[in-house]
């Protein structure tokens, strides 16, 4: 057996791969479910917080800033672990899936709130004044004039952050979620062979590479020309 054969037999073992393919595929499905849920709820919550913050109600803004800074400072893994192992003491026992989803959604909410907020505040004051002087209300101005401009500015940092946090679904392994990495590592320990891990890596590439490429295209498309 040549070195090359030994290498492929270890890392790309066809028999092992075929055997654990279904589990990895289920892992892919779980990862997609988690990712979609995190992105939808995290971004929606982040945008909602940024909009509330633009109302400039002092105590509410302090609360928002506190929550946002909290979730931006804690490592996502710590949030997941706290939720999964800590909440049961408060009488709620979220599953590993729910813990991972909510934790990462909170983290994405925090980061995206800051990004949305930066976008909103970067829109020139004159835009508000022009719109308000024609009789548009605060909300109409925010929705029709400010937000469309703010969102364009936020797309590059937002896509980067979203991709980074979505990859954090791999942290779900710690709380027994069989997403890609979880499925791959348990398959690896059952088969005493690292091939499932290679499949996991391939699955991440297949999932995230198109998203990364799409993000790059979006950034180009929305590059703002004044």
């Amino acid at each position, binding site marked *: 057996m040549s070195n090359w054969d030994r290498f492929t037999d270890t890392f790309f073992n066809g028999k092992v791969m075929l055997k654990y393919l279904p589990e990895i595929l289920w892992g892919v499905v779980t990862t997609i479910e988690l990712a979609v849920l995190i992105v939808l709820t995290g971004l929606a919550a982040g945008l909602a917080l940024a909009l509330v913050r633009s109302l400039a109600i002092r105590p509410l803004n302090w609360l928002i800033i506190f929550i946002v800074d909290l979730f931006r400072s804690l490592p996502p893994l710590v949030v997941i672990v706290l939720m999964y192992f800590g909440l049961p003491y408060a009488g709620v026992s979220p599953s590993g899936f729910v813990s991972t989803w909510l934790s990462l959604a909170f983290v994405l909410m925090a980061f995206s709130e800051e990004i949305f907020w930066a976008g909103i505040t970067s829109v020139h004051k*004159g835009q508000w*004044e*022009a*719109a308000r002087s024609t*009789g*548009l209300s605060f909300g109409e101005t925010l929705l*029709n004039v400010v937000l469309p401009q703010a969102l364009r500015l936020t797309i590059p940092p937002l896509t980067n952050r979203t991709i980074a946090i979505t990859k954090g679904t791999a942290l779900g392994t710690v709380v027994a979620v069989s997403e890609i990495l979880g499925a791959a590592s348990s398959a690896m320990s059952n088969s005493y062979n690292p091939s499932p891990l290679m499949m996991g890596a391939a699955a991440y590439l297949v999932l995230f590479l198109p998203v990364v490429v799409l993000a790059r295209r979006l950034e180009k498309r929305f590059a703002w020309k004044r």
Partner: protein
Amino acid sequence: MTTPLPIVDARGVHKHFGALHVLKGVDLTVAERELVFVIGPSGSGKSTLLRCLNRLEEPSSGSIVVDGIDMLDPRTDINHARQRIGMVFQSFNLYPHMTALGNVTLALRKVAGKSRAEAERLGLAALERVGLADRAGHTPGQLSGGQQQRVAIARSIALEPRVMLFDEPTSALDPELVGSVLEVMRALRESGMTMVVVSHEMGFARNAADRVVFMDDGLIVEQGPPAAIFESPAQERTRAFIGQIQRH
């Protein structure tokens, strides 16, 4: 015979920014179809006064009535009132993500409650009045400064305001583009629009203004017909200011 109500009736307007006392009791009335031209040194409060008239800035005290509407009454629907007061800014402030027509129709649809088709018809008519109907589909980035400012004027006149406020409408323009904006303003005046114009375009003031108001240090120091203010000002401060700008 009753004298018609003034369109703008501001009395005893004070404005503080923290410790800074910017308007120190300004009285300004503007009659229907009148063009009042406001001059004064930088920082004298000209912009602040204009912005108090449509309540973009909240006056600290005083009263402001525009077209019979008490602008400072908390019960006044300010968004409704503002439709009747057009405002044109030094920096145009067009919405960069919309076409010229989109800029002009936004308030028509959202505030005046017009249907899209009706708003577009009125919007095109307004663009026509500023000579830019053929640019309806262009975004601000594709227009010159002068054209942008004319679109901004169209955005205001589309709402058929009772009075228009201009805050240095030509100051951000290259000299060769100033004429086209002044021409639109002149046509607007000829159509009977009531206007308050803060500007340094003394030539325009001489042949288009009914009255020139000189402000200094938060107060109206002197006012009168353009010839009187420019040729024979009564106040020393006015004379000094006029002398200064005419040397440029």
